[in-house]
Every structure is written in structure tokens, then in C-alpha cells.
């Protein structure tokens, strides 16, 4: 499983994560898939979780329906979601796994003290466990820090 982010999408995720810190940010990933899953666009969405947004995120069903509609109308594919882990590693938690769905890429951004520290991507395998996706560097050498 390989994933590539356009520089614009990568930058947007990082900026969103630091802007929302210390809360968790979230958003949708759109793009195309051939041998490599190419994320061409990242779109922020409201973290609708009631309660502690520093530890949890949730995307409302209405926002989800809008995302599917957006993909259809713009002839693109909904490839997954991104969210941040404030002051925690960019690795999926038990909560992330419990609610994960097949096919989607789950990009996780670790933000430490307001700065992006790491960015990883994960996808469920056939056994229902997360496997890390390789993030290909683009020509401009994506910086993770």
C-alpha cells in the first residue's frame, strides 16, 4: 500500500493540525488511485465530538454524506480521512481501530507542543488490523517536520 500526497494537501493537513492544536483536527482526503493512491485534495471538516476534543474526533453523518456527494460531483474519489494526535504518536489507537472501515486511508498527524512532529498513513488489512502505508516523497521532498 503506497500513498502520495500533493504538496498542497500535505501542507493543508499540517496547517490544520497546528491551527486546531491542542484539539484534534479532522478532514477528508480525495484523489485517484492507480498503482499508488494519490491524495490530491484534503478538506478540513468540523470535529463534531461532544466533550473532550483534545482526545477524540468525530465527523457528523451529515458532513459524511456531503463528502460522498462532493466526490461524485467533482469526479474524484473519497480516499479516506485525516486526524491529529495532539502530543501523542502518529500511530492508530484502539479507538481508531474500533471504528475504522475498510478501504479508507487514515492519515494521522502527531502534533507536539504545537509543531507537526510526524505524519503517517494506515489502512485496514483483510484481517481487520491496521497496516502502515508507505508515503512516497514527491519531487519537492515532503518535509514531515
Amino acid at each position, binding site marked *: 500500500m503506497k500513498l502520495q500526497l500533493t504538496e498542497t494537501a500535505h501542507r493543508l493537513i499540517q496547517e490544520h493540525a497546528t491551527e486546531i492544536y491542542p484539539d*484534534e483536527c*479532522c478532514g477528508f482526503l480525495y484523489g485517484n488511485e492507480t498503482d499508488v493512491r494519490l491524495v490530491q485534495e484534503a478538506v478540513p471538516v468540523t470535529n463534531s*465530538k461532544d466533550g473532550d476534543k483534545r*482526545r*477524540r*474526533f*468525530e*465527523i457528523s*453523518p*451529515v458532513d*459524511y*454524506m456531503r463528502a*460522498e456527494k462532493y*466526490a*461524485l460531483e467533482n469526479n474524484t*474519489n*473519497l*480516499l479516506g*480521512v485525516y*486526524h491529529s*494526535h*495532539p502530543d*501523542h504518536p502518529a500511530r*492508530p*489507537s*484502539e*479507538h*481508531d481501530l*474500533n*471504528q*475504522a*472501515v*475498510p*478501504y*479508507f486511508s*487514515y492519515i494521522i498527524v502527531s502534533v507536539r507542543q504545537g509543531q507537526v512532529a510526524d505524519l503517517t498513513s494506515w489502512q485496514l488489512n483483510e484481517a481487520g488490523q491496521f497496516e502502515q502505508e508507505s508515503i512516497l516523497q514527491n519531487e519537492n521532498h515532503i518535509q514531515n517536520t
Partner: protein
Amino acid sequence: MAKIIIPTPLRKFTGNQATIETNGSNVLESLQSLAETHPEIKKHIFDDAGQVRKFVRLYLGDEDIKALQNEQTAVQDNSVISIIPAIAGGIN
């Protein structure tokens, strides 16, 4: 007979079809109809007890079926049911 909108993550179980026409007079029967024609999707919608899974939300048009008659909500020929996976998570 309602149309069900399949979310992107589950389309690999419907031969990549985004919408499926189903039979049934209510939401539950429509979902069961979908599971009969596309068996691989069943475990992603129903749990082992045959109940709709906890992390699956269902909308009829723009309304959450929880605000209607839940899975017993009646459907018409032009009804559109959306299957919506819960998108949530966070740190431990």
C-alpha cells in the same frame, strides 16, 4: 423498493456500484435485501445477532432514522437510504 447509497469504503462489496435498488417495505427489509444480493457486505452492516452494527448510521433522505421509526421506518419507491460509517477516533 428503496435505493441504497453505498459509502465508498463498502463499494468493493457491491462491484463498485454506488447505489443499489432493493426490495422491502421498510429500512430493515431493504438492508436485508441488499445483504441477499451482495452477501459480502452483510458483516459490515449487521452484527452476529442480526442487528445493525453499532458504528453504522442510517439516513432516509436527510433524516436520521433514529428520529423516525428506526429500522422499521417505511420506505417508498423513491426513497433513498444512506449507509454512513461512523468516522471517529482519537488517542488512548
